[in-house]
């Protein structure tokens, strides 16, 4: 029973999330005045970004590294999958898996120089990586489509024995994105609450202690990079097929910054945080442009976004996850309940942002 209690508290938000995912499409069809197709497209995009955010969160939040170039992995996944399906006729599922693997392999390689670098120096190195990828794509335009990009990607499909599911509509793709996100969230949660996750955090908190305890930094740092690259790569592949086409301009530094913003807004060290941060930022970016304001929309959205970022760091340094945690604690102490016990790793992200 104790096991159920501690499990229940931690997984309740995920249960709710799952329910929400299943309920959204039928709901949208009922609500008048809303274009369900577009909203589902937007949600799918948010879910795809959430996949990146979760992977990046493990690298940055749990292992304490930094990457200003994750749009690069996103791009690698997108282009790999696009080329495999468009030019080589690979089935969708295989293409996505290969795209993810390629991205993971490159992530592993990028993890190697990261062993020597930290802080701003690592930031610059990863920044360079993120800038290089789109440029390399344009350089090799003969087979990558160059700056005009790749278009007309085949529809996503999933062969199941006798028949094949084709994800044709926005709603179909929404379910695909949601399914992938759910699977990858479970995997991430397993990693983070296990000893591997513990080793990651040990590296973040004290590399010296980690080494003295036998944690092989080479192995674990490159694994963290590879894992986050895997997630970004799979997400990139899904992105390519959501849009039915990609071009190098989709993968700028700003996108890398967006990914970082998602995990900071959501709360570092928390998977739920990465998820909510991705959802929040995607909707913010799209909703703000629709605010009925007299002046120029574009400028306002940019300024408001900037203000939100600054205010969040100043007043909610632990992001949405921190807010949730504080509310939970306040509720718990209100009913004189005991916080969760046996063997659970305390949720992390204990960075105070206010001096």
């Amino acid at each position, binding site marked *: 029973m104790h096991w159920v209690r501690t499990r229940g508290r931690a997984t309740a938000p995920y249960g709710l999330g799952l329910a929400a995912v299943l309920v959204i499409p039928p709901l949208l069809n009922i609500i008048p005045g809303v274009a369900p197709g577009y909203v589902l497209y937007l949600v799918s995009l948010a879910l795809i970004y959430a996949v990146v955010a979760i992977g990046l969160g493990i690298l940055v939040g749990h292992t304490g590294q930094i990457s200003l170039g994750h749009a690069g992995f996103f791009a690698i996944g997108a282009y790999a999958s696009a080329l495999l399906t468009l030019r080589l006729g690979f089935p969708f599922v295989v293409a996505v898996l290969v795209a993810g693997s390629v991205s993971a392999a490159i992530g592993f390689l990028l993890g190697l120089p990261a062993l020597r670098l930290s802080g701003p120096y690592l930031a610059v190195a990863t920044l360079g990586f993120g800038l290089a990828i789109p440029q390399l794509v344009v350089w090799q335009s003969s087979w990558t489509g160059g700056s005009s990009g790749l278009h007309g990607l085949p529809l996503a499909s999933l062969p199941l024995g006798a028949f094949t599911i084709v994800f044709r509509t926005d709603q179909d793709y929404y379910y695909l994105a949601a399914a992938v996100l759910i699977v990858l969230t479970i*995997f*991430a949660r*397993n*990693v983070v609450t*296990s*000893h*591997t*996750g*513990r*080793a990651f*955090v*040990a590296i*973040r*908190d*004290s590399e*010296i*202690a*980690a*080494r*003295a*305890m*036998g*944690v*092989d*930094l080479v192995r674990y740092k490159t*694994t963290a990079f590879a*894992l986050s690259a895997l997630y970004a790569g799979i997400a990139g592949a899904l992105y390519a097929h959501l849009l039915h086409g990609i071009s190098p301009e989709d993968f700028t530094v700003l996108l890398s910054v967006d990914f970082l913003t998602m995990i900071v807004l959501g709360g570092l*060290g928390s998977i739920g945080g990465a998820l909510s941060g991705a959802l929040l930022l995607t909707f913010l970016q799209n909703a703000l442009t629709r605010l009925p304001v007299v002046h120029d929309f574009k400028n306002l959205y940019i300024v408001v976004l900037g203000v939100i970022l600054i205010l969040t760091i100043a007043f909610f340094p632990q992001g949405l996850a921190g807010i949730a945690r504080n509310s939970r604690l306040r509720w718990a102490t209100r009913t004189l309940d005991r*916080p969760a*016990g*046996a*063997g659970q*790793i*305390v949720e*992390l992200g*204990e960075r105070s942002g206010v001096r």
Partner: protein
Amino acid sequence: MTGPLLEITDLTIRFGGLVAVDGVDLRVNAGEIVGLIGPNGAGKTTVFNCISRFYQPDRGTVHFKGRDITRSGSHEIIRFGIARTFQNVELCRSMTALGNLLVGQHVAMRSGVIRDGLRLPGVGADEARATQRADEMLELLGLTRDRDHVVSTLPFGLQKLVELGRALVSDPALLLLDEPTAGADKQEIQGLADLIRRMRDRFDLSVLVVEHDMSFVMGLCDRLYVLDFGRRIAEGAPADVRNDPAVIEAYLGEPELEVTEV
């Protein structure tokens, strides 16, 4: 086991132009508590850091259980059976006491990202076993009450205990203690000496202690090495070392010189 557990020969470590450790010989036999003392800056912690493989020696060798570990990686040391504590407590600050003791058992866990991510069979059993071992150690050290407290919220003395527990939980043959009395009061220091002796007896350990507090080592150690300016200036039983004129002279410049036995 024949031969010393730990044998350091002609160890020399330079930082730029400064010779921090100069041709030091040292050995620890099985079951001993050996002290490494000397004034500030004598090079004691540098020797430790070399054994732990955080520093590279310019000359000399380190042998443990007969194996040459002079060029081993810093993460391999614990597998050979050497665990240590740090002068500035190096705990994983965001984790609980339990969490830290679980990290300490890293080498006993068969962890891997695929294995953990897919929750393959065996993961749960490993975790349960490690948790039980950690709980036993916490109880031994009187830390059960702070089991689920984040260590950064604990007072310094308790943090040092957690770090000791983390070192012990890996079942080492040799325990390196780096200034265990730093920041401790008189009462805690007395308790510490007893604790170390008990741990040595219970877990069949050997201990190498770097210390600044003379009275602490006098009562605790079987043998002492004294360093000054990177060189070994004395060696032997505490009683002999205490009266060695070279040792007295090395410490004469020190503000606190309490040579009364605990």
